[in-house]
């Protein structure tokens, strides 16, 4: 029907393209206004790193998520929306400190992270393990069994593995420092390559 085609023409004419700059400008304005009105429950940004693009997300309590590109950032954001709050906004300002510390870590100018963490994405035993991970010092490694003993449950080797695999804050909470008892790497959220990169970085210091 020609009528339908005409309508399409008109729709195209009315839908003048909205260029990316305009949207970026509007977005920045929204970010400021939303911050002032306390409407951002989860702020996020992405940063480049030697292990690829990282998504950083923070609640008012602290850094809540670090995600590798391989985890699919869109899906991570969707999950954050469901688990924490749908009020998620790209708001790099709130992540400046975390981003700076991660940069310093990769530049070998930082061994311990000081940024405040929000551990609300993990519970129970996993959270317990993740709380103890920063006790493994920079450049050191532990086995899954060591960690199980450290948290007072020597039989829970597998559960420690799961806790490391589901660490919502990789790099900052150093689950990459946990290896298999025979010294082989074991798995890693960011892939084996990322784990090797982090361990090499720390070993070279």
């Amino acid at each position, binding site marked *: 029907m*020609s*009528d339908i*085609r*005409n*309508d399409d*023409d*008109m*729709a195209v*004419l*009315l*839908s*003048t393209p*909205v*260029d990316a*700059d*305009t*949207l970026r*400008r*509007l*977005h920045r*304005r*929204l970010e400021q*206004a*939303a911050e002032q*009105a306390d*409407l*951002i429950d989860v702020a996020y940004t992405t940063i480049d790193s030697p292990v690829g693009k990282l998504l950083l997300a923070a609640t008012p309590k602290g850094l809540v998520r670090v995600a590798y590109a391989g985890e699919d950032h869109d899906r991570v954001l969707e999950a954050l929306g469901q688990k924490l*709050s*749908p*009020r998620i*906004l*790209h708001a790099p300002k709130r992540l400046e400190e975390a981003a700076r510390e991660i940069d310093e870590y990769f530049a070998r100018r930082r061994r311990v992270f000081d940024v405040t963490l929000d551990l609300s994405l993990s519970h129970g035993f996993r959270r317990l393990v993740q709380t103890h991970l920063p006790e493994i010092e920079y450049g050191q490694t532990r086995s899954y069994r060591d960690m199980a003993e450290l948290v007072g449950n020597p039989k829970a080797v597998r559960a420690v593995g799961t806790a490391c695999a589901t660490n919502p804050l990789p790099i900052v909470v150093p689950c990459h420092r946990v290896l298999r008892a025979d010294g082989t790497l074991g798995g890693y959220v960011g892939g084996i390559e990322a784990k090797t990169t982090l361990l090499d970085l720390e070993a070279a210091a």
Partner: protein
Amino acid sequence: MVAQHGATVLRVCRVVLGPHDADDAWSETFLSAMRAYPDLPETANVEAWLVTIAHRKAIDVLRAAKRNPLPVDEVPEAPAGQGVPDVEAAGLWAAVKELPSKQRQAVAYRYVAGLAYAEIAEILGGTVEAARRASADGLKNLRKHYPGAITKGASS
């Protein structure tokens, strides 16, 4: 949400309000949306919901403009340099501006946001048939006053 629907909402605001007041309505729309979002049922059509909010914001802007009848300048001749529809489309924007507000809104929600007539009826109030008629009339008027669209279409 902003990433997914930001452009559509801006287009809708532009058609309803004109390019220049659209920015404010856009910001206000997403701010209110962020306020209300946690209460939105999961099954809701987010785009229709956003357009509903944009509609209310647009009405606020129009009312405010009526209260302070400042001499409003026409669509500027020089490109504003902010991605606002430029001189080429000035004729179209002038034609859009001349539409009665109900038609202008119906056209925006139908042809820019792509909403169903039932959704438009809910936003504008009134029956589905009235929404259909308003958007058809609006389009007819636009074609009459903006010949560019007619020459493009085949016989109608």
